[in-house]
């Protein structure tokens, strides 16, 4: 994995720059049946080039319309958040409470997913706008921006699904893959899974502290002190805003109700973001890797690891927006630096590559995917566990010709006129 910097200082993440293909056709230690075991090094290189071409085409096409999209959304979020807060000043009346809480929940979800996550990924850095930029953006959660950028942008996106390197495989506290050795603590997993769901932002907040390194005593103490200070400041400001100042602005009679409304909005956002994020890599279809399998991989193999290790969620445009387009987790992992609003148009091109090379394109409906994840979390709390069956190679569903509107006739339905 290397990174290159464009002349304007923009850093793009690229897979390993070493185009060296593995020696021989099947030198890689993949088990039979694994998509990578079927492909020749030449094919892997071709696939890498094909994925790279999509990136170049979309990147070259970014412009005014994209800038307009993100600015409109930033503005919409701010208006919705401000309006909801104002409505909640009357939170002692139930309709105002319901309206304000719904509005604030939606605002917090948009801010977290489509804005915060994607802007902090640098997807909009090409605009060179200092206020919609990964280096300056901070989100409305208790997790400091810098910490998250390190754990997600760098560790997770570089070492995606490599057990032992990608700290997002179980977040150092959960067993989500049978490759992870079992430990009696995991018996409590079904219990703290629910806690993590409810208080996800707090989990994300401490995630980057590198609990493993602290446990082993290898963590630099001055850095730990600074990071804890950062979290402390962020937590203080968030708590003051949501649980002191805005409740106080609702008056003596409304304090409790606004407190409850803000708490609810934070919990709703936490449950939602947890669900979407857990559906990204933990469903059955996702492949995980050993460090040996991912050693010295070529650029093509890097793309393939992202493709096979990520899982999409089917849904409509609103669903995709509310999930910050992480329902296009596959496209996000292939192109973490491309604007999320482009994933929809990239998806068919990715599927075409999958079909051409007999690769799976992991996706499924939300509830099915989410239940799968919960099932795994409960099963793997106990020792053992098997690798779950994977998706078959992608085949484009036959195009169904739209017969158009029909009207009833004595002989059955006939095409409508005109």
């Amino acid at each position, binding site marked *: 994995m*290397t*990174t*290159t*910097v464009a002349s*304007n*200082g*923009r*850093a793009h993440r690229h897979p390993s720059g070493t185009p060296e293909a593995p020696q021989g056709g099947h030198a890689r230690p993949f088990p039979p049946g694994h998509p990578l075991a079927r492909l020749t090094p030449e094919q892997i290189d071709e696939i890498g080039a094909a994925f790279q071409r999509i990136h170049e085409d979309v990147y070259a096409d*970014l*412009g*005014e*319309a*994209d*800038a*307009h999209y993100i600015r409109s959304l930033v*503005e919409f979020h*701010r*208006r919705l958040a*401000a309006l909801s807060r104002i409505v909640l000043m009357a939170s002692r009346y139930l309709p105002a409470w319901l309206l304000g809480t719904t509005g604030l929940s939606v605002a917090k979800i948009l801010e977290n997913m489509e804005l915060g996550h994607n802007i902090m990924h640098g997807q909009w*850095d*090409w*605009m*060179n*706008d*200092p*206020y919609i*930029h990964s*280096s*300056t953006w*901070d*989100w*409305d959660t208790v997790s400091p921006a*810098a910490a998250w*950028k*390190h754990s997600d942008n*760098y560790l997770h996106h570089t070492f995606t699904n490599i057990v032992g390197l990608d700290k997002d495989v179980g977040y150092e506290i959960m067993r989500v893959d049978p490759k992870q050795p079992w430990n009696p603590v995991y018996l409590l997993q079904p219990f703290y899974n629910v806690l993590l769901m409810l208080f996800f932002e707090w989990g994300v907040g401490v995630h980057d502290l590198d609990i493993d390194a602290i446990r082993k005593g290898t963590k630099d103490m*001055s*850095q730990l002190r*600074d990071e804890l200070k950062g979290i402390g400041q*962020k937590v203080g*400001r*968030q708590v*003051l*805003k949501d649980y002191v*100042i*805005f409740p106080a602005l609702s008056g003596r009679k409304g304090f409790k109700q606004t407190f409850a409304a803000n708490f609810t909005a934070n919990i709703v956002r936490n449950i939602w973001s947890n669900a979407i994020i857990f559906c990204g890599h933990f469903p059955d279809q996702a492949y995980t890797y050993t460090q040996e399998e991912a050693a010295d991989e070529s650029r093509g193999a890097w793309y393939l690891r992202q493709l096979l290790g990520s899982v999409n969620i089917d849904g409509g445009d609103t669903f995709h927006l509310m999930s910050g387009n992480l329902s296009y987790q596959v496209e996000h992992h292939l192109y973490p630096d491309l604007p999320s609003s482009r994933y929809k148009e990239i998806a068919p091109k990715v599927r075409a590559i999958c079909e051409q090379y007999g690769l799976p394109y992991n996706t499924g409906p939300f509830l099915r995917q989410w239940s799968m994840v919960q099932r795994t979390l409960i099963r793997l709390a106990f020792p053992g566990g098997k690798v779950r069956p994977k998706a078959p190679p992608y085949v484009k569903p036959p195009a169904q010709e739209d017969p158009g509107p029909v009207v009833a006739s004595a002989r059955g339905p006939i095409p409508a006129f005109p």
Partner: protein
Amino acid sequence: MVERAATPTVPPWRRRVMRVARALTTPLAPDDYLGLLNPAWSARELTGMIVRIKPETEDASTVVVRPSFRWGGHRPGQYLRIGAELNGVRHWRAYSLTSDPDHPEGLVSVTVKHVPEGRMSPWFTRGAEAGQMVFLGDVEGEFRLPEAIPARSLFISAGSGVTPIWSMLRELERRDALTDVFHVHCARTADGMIFGDYLRRMDVEYDGYTLHAHLTGGAPRLRPSDLDELCSDWRERATFLSGPRDMIDAFQSHWKEHGDSTLLNIERFQPIIGTGDADVGNGGTVRFRVTDVEATCDVGVSILVGGEQAGGILPYGCRMGICHTCVGKLCQGQVRDLRTGELHGEPGHTIRTCVNAPEGHIEIEL
């Protein structure tokens, strides 16, 4: 990090109110919400509205801008970073300020020469219109009139290099100090001379101002040795020189050999700095916290260059301390400015990695 506009100067009471109101808007700023009601109410960054674009010659125009907040002033000869959005991307360039520092309507202007292969100058001279928004950066530049006006001076300019010189001449005119000024200006044609009419009028009006227009259309370029004939006492004059790089190099070495270098003032853009040429400070070590790289910088090696040599991929732009693309937050230690030799920086300060070197061990959030 990304290049930013200047921060407007606002009254202290406003700053205090905003600091308190931030508790409501965190992690955003109150200005982010004020801007929704009226973009002009946001004091987040200094912007400006193009008032008009005044053509000076066939390929140069003066862009007149009304800043969104009171103009903080500048010294004649200084330049302004000005930004605009082209196809969704914000671009920045630095141009010499040509407006009077105390313009009664608070307007400012830069004069831009059209560079056909450029991006920003064609936009300013051909594409931009009144009513469009631009971003105004900091006023910078050491090339300016000294407080004590020299008794005798020599101005040498070429092409669009005349813009800072023109600002200085105007200041001299306003202060009634055009007593003994010799000006050599190189242009291709008389018509193509930016501010040509104005300079020619001054030449007629003031006994103390002499303009020598060196027209290069067909004639050889101006050589430093030509000065003996044009202005025989050039050695004794305070000289201000603005033009293309090779011209500056030629005149600079001429002054070193035959004149007094301390009297020669030039627009000092150092294209590359921090590669170890400067003998400043003691060097040190850097820990890049985000990139997770440890670097050792020898004497005169910038944080950026040291980090790159250690294998870090770091953001950069101009590499000469203008654009602020390379900045990072200092977490620990102090740094030395390679341009001035000054030791500075405290934890929490944002520093430019391209022109600063570590002094001892530092940690930076990059």
